[in-house]
């Protein structure tokens, strides 16, 4: 059990704690939290399309820094992630 705890990371997505396996991307945490990622100019929800950093649809705010690509960023303990409401 200690092993599995060590291999988990807890972050917060729109204020809610989410545990993901160590090495998971922020995009995974956002999806596990039941959220989508960025908001389009006209207010629509957007979610990862390519998963490899090209489409920029997975952008979220991480620790106050806006427009970060969640699929290219690994979860770190206590990350504050803000996604489409």
């Amino acid at each position, binding site marked *: 059990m200690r092993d599995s705890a060590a291999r988990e990371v807890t972050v917060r997505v729109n204020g809610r704690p989410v545990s993901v396996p160590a090495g998971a991307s922020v995009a995974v945490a956002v999806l596990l939290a039941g959220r989508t990622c960025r908001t389009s100019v006209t207010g629509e929800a957007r979610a990862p399309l390519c998963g490899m950093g090209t489409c920029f649809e997975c*952008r979220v705010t991480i620790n106050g820094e*806006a*427009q970060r690509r969640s699929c290219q960023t690994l979860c770190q303990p206590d990350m504050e992630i803000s996604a489409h409401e």
Partner: protein
Amino acid sequence: MSVSPEIIVVGAGIVGAACALDLTREGLRTTVIEEGAPGAGTTAAAMGHIVVMDDSEAQFALTRYSQILWDELRGELPLNVEFENCGTIWVAADDEEMAEVRRKADYYQERGVRAEILSPASLREAEPHLRPGLAGGLLVQGDGVLYPPCAAAFLLHRAQELGAKVLLGKKVTNVGKGAVRLADGSALKANIVINATGQLAPRLTPGLNIRPRKGHLVITDRYPGTVRHQLVELGYLKSAHSLSSDSVAFNVQPRKTGQLLIGSSRQYGDENRAVDANILSRMLRRAFEYVPGLKGISGTRVWAGFRPATPDKLPLIGPAASDPSIYIAAGHEGLGITTSLGTARLVTAQILGQRPAIPMEPYLPTREMAVEHHNA
């Protein structure tokens, strides 16, 4: 005039589009010829700042008159023109620039333009992301921003609705003597030709004193609220007026989408449209000095374009010296988005033999072009 003349406007940038709309509004038979896409040249490369400027009385008159015309048009502008009345803040870094703020405030207020002097504290309140320690600023509330290519497309579309003809993809090789000749060998009859081809205007009308002045812009991802007004450093006046050397100045504009446009640079003698990494990095460093938080944000696109610059910083509006049936509406340097509407009114008034709302003499292509010195 008993029979309406045939008028051909060459160029569908924002100036040509504005001329076409104004002429058709007056019931004049107008055809616009554009080699590429409407608004795809200097118009598309521009920032889209609707701004009153005071470099000279004539520049003030044309920018102020044009701004009033934009305000009148505001209710009709479609959403994609992204017009926003955000105001300009001229940012003063030191006491010398603060003296310029006071001079500028007096100048505007004497001429009925609202302008408010900002103390260091009120500047900070208005724009919290500016670096601490600035001397203050001047808020000009009536200024605004818009998205230039969509504004040009709107003006052209409105002209078409009123009966203007638009020919796209046709290259004009020669104008004058009652005709416009195209690269495909055909010719169109034209009693009056309006050369609205911006920095390319000397190609059709040799001898015009217009030179391309290269500029760069960066557009960022969306960071709403980072800046709220169009911010321009007052040092801009020093750098923008240097006619010889390359210069950069802090100039950031908030877009309706939350994106930021970051400028500005000025270069003569580089007619290559490619981005110049050296001047781009100087330009960005200047912006970071004023808004340190810009350092961490993502830019999405960088481009360069060419301002049509004249030696006295005033556009050429009116009949050409070589052929009075050719009207010039070009040479607006960095102010063409603002002054397009005023230019169109002047051209129309001249063609109709009417008295324009502002004196037209300072812009006539036949004027003496002494280089003016800025009053600061």
